[in-house]
């Protein structure tokens, strides 16, 4: 095999070919260093009938990793499919298994969306980790044939005042912004959550939405014998190779004196400009119908793209690896196959279209190279999922059934066990915690809550993101959901929200996942859109911990059962395990993204008060004494225990229907869902968003503490123009949705008055709410 020093000087050593592998069955291979277990290695040998070559070993090891193969989660994720009814599937043009789910939104438009995690890379190198996280999810969406049209970024960090958070958060935010802004994708939502379990394990999830005409959907497959495989975009370099560099190290080169490659950093650097050009180039290729199949290169690089394309097609694939344009000299076949260089795509193209394809690439100054073709396979090979043959200067270095690489990785039934301390945790409720009493303490609690890191304004973050670009953003931060116009003529659009309260999930992962779903669903409805589909990003600790697997199993079941009850399908998602430090896992964090559809974005419902001269405030839903897991319990007592708020998905559905009907009939001038921080938080946010004061009058006999801070689910604060009040409350009554009058908006006032409790100047509230993050992060 060839080994190289960092300056690219080649030291002659033969490449490990298939023939060589067959001839040297006993050669020791560093499979453990590459993360493979003994039995997994033996399985590869059994599949191939010989030892793998270095290149094959690189491919299998990265494709059989947890990240690519879902080996610990697969058995559980099946439940999503099992719980999806035909009716739910009706609007789905592509679902789980494709790069991203695709939803028919009407008027001939389809929308695709997906969230993905880039957690660990963002801890190692916050800027580049976050940037390439955005880049990766955007290419996923692009590979569906869609134009990426918006992004969102659910983020989680350690304590806001921890020194490491001061390193990680600004870098992550700058990276998300730096990449997304440069791509010209409006950032329309996300989350920023602080909790000590995320110290050392920040969660950087990135979501992208794409739109296309229904007939333009492209799926990744390499069909049509003779079709060419074209690699285009950035050159392939040594970045992101990480572990595979052991294949080039001394101990395994069989040459004790050779200068092996020192272990490379597994960090990738993003080039958003190249990606922007790649997007435009791809869209032109799609428009000109020059693409038969397409796949993005993400984690696992060419290993993934070639094996997935080949196994999804109807033939085999032959790739000449030496044709791959390189950025570094002396790269080995194994390194080329596992490089995670960003901003690359792989397409299957009819031979007669190759010239036109290359012309489009040249117009955009995008490097494009034919690296192989779709080949004919025997019936026997076809039964095994085709054949992938990769050569290096004429010698075969990979020869395998691609399905065994891409889809037939190991599947584990990991032990699942409810943690021993779960009962203790549930028993430790908030019942005994001291509550504020009297106007003075309540007043102080309001200010302390709205300025706490988890409830304070996110403007420090979101002001670094372009939310205007493309000119279709109708709702963005601060709003319950981001909403964009898809069709400029009809006004049809989509809304998206992501949510998860990891504290609730820690107390009860099943209910917690449903609460995450319920909140995202409610947030989408608050803007006036009809929830239509779900994506998720399941962030958990180590799957080798039976307690974590229990959390995972419970969360998946809760989410899937919840989706069935709400009648909206999960169209895709992503799993991120091993988010833990030592034996301490992060809070179970199944981030749920809900996509909604709105037929005309002009009827969107804003968050801020004051768009109509006279407005009545109504609280929809029921308020119970529910403080376990609440933000108040954290802020006031640093407490986590008990059971999360009750979830009633039937009620969520009704609430959404009423709000959407209100939006359709022009009965609502503002809406804001209640979640962390309860009613007080919602009132403050809506008053500040509209720069309009209000007077809150709680019902007779109400306990102001409970009414102001409880986190009961299934509630929304709405502002109703005076003229619509009767009509709207009649509708609520007729449909059985509790609606309580809790005050009036006062356009003349610069204050939020909570009668009998306190009066706050808008300036005072703004200072408290907006000051926190700038004071922490500059």
């Amino acid at each position: 095999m060839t080994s190289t020093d960092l300056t690219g000087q080649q030291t002659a050593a033969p490449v490990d070919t298939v023939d060589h592998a067959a001839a040297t069955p006993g050669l020791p291979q560093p499979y453990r260093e590459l993360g493979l277990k003994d039995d997994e290695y033996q399985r590869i040998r059994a599949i191939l009938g010989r030892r793998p070559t270095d290149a094959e070993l690189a491919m299998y090891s990265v494709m059989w990793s947890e990240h690519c193969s879902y080996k610990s989660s697969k058995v559980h994720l099946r439940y999503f499919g099992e719980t999806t009814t035909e009716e739910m599937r009706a609007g789905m043009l592509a679902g789980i298994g494709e790069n991203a789910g695709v939803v028919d939104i009407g008027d001939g438009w389809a929308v695709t969306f997906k969230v993905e995690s880039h957690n660990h890379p963002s801890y190692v190198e916050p800027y580049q980790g976050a940037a390439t996280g955005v880049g990766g999810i955007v290419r996923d969406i692009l590979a569906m044939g869609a134009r990426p049209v918006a992004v969102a970024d659910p983020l989680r960090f350690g304590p806001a005042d921890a020194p490491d958070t001061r390193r990680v958060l600004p870098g992550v935010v700058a990276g998300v912004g730096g990449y997304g802004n440069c791509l010209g994708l409006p950032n329309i939502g996300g989350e920023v959550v602080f909790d000590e379990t995320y110290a050392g394990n920040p969660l950087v999830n990135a979501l992208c939405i794409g739109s296309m005409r229904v007939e333009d959907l492209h799926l990744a497959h390499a069909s049509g014998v003779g079709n060419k495989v074209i690699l285009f975009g950035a050159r392939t370099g040594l970045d992101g190779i990480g572990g595979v560099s052991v294949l080039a190290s001394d101990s395994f080169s069989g040459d004790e004196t050779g200068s092996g490659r020192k272990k490379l950093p597994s960090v990738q650097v993003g080039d958003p400009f190249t990606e922007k050009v790649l997007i435009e180039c791809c869209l032109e290729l799609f428009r000109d119908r020059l693409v038969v199949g397409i796949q993005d290169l993400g984690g696992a690089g060419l290993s993934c793209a070639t094996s997935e394309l080949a196994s999804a097609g109807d033939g085999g694939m032959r790739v000449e690896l030496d044709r791959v344009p390189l950025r570094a000299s002396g790269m080995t076949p194994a390194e080329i196959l596992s490089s995670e260089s960003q901003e690359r795509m792989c397409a299957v193209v009819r031979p007669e279209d190759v010239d036109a394809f290359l012309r489009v690439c040249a117009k955009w100054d995008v490097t494009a190279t034919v690296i192989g073709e779709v080949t004919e396979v025997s019936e026997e090979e076809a039964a095994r999922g085709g054949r992938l043959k990769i050569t290096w200067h004429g010698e075969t270095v990979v020869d395998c059934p691609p399905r065994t690489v891409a889809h037939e990785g190991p599947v584990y039934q990991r032990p699942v066990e409810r943690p021993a301390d779960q009962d203790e945790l549930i028993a430790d409720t908030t019942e005994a915690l001291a509550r504020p009493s009297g106007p003075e303490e309540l007043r102080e609690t309001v200010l302390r809550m709205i300025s706490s890191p988890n409830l304070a304004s996110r403007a420090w973050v979101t002001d670094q993101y372009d939310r205007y670009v493309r000119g279709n953003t109708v709702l963005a931060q601060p709003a319950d959901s981001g909403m964009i116009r898809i069709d400029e003529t009809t006004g049809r659009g989509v809304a998206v929200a992501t949510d998860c309260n990891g504290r609730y999930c820690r107390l009860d992962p099943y209910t917690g996942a449903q609460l995450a779903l319920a909140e995202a669903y409610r947030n989408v409805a608050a803007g006036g859109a009809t929830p239509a589909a779900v994506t998720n990003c399941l962030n958990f600790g180590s799957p080798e911990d039976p307690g974590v697997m229990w959390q995972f199993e419970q969360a998946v079941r809760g989410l899937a059962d919840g989706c069935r009850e709400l009648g909206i399908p999960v169209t895709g998602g992503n799993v991120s395990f091993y988010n833990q430090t030592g034996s301490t896992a992060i809070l179970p964090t199944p981030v749920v993204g809900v996509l909604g559809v709105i037929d005309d974005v002009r009827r969107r419902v804003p968050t801020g008060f004051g768009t109509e001269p006279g407005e009545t405030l109504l609280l929809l839903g029921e308020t119970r004494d529910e403080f376990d897991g609440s933000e108040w319990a954290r802020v006031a007592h640093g407490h986590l225990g008990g059971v999360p708020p009750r979830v009633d998905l039937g009620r969520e559905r009704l609430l959404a229907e009423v709000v959407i009907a209100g939006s359709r009939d022009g009965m609502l001038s503002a809406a804001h869902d209640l979640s962390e921080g309860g009613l007080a938080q919602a009132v403050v946010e809506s008053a500040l968003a509209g720069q309009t004061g209000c007077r809150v009058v709680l019902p007779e006999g109400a306990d102001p503490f409970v009414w102001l801070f409880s986190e009961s689910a299934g509630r929304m604060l709405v502002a109703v123009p005076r003229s619509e009040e009767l009509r709207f409350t009649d509708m609520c009554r007729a449909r059985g949705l509790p609606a309580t009058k809790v005050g009036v908006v006062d356009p003349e006032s610069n204050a939020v008055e909570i009668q009998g409790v306190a009066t706050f100047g808008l300036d005072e509230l703004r200072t408290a709410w907006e000051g926190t993050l700038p004071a922490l992060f500059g």
Partner: protein
Amino acid sequence: MARVVVDVMPKQEILDPQGQAVAGALPRLGFEGVTSVRQGKHFELEVDDDVDDETLERIAETLLANPVIEDWTVRRVTVESADGSVAGAV
């Protein structure tokens, strides 16, 4: 008082999109013969005389460069020519 120059460059194996963009632009502007460009950062520090080399090295490593993706060099500059160009000595 001494002047210290720290140059920070992307590591060889790390992508340098900025350098690439410059290299790509040169031929379009009619400049031939430049085969590669890499772009990094250049810091000029004025430091008290009692700041030792080890401290400078630590400053470079912890603040000026990101060791995960960048290499750096630290030089004390002894001569400053009139046009502002510096002739360095380590």
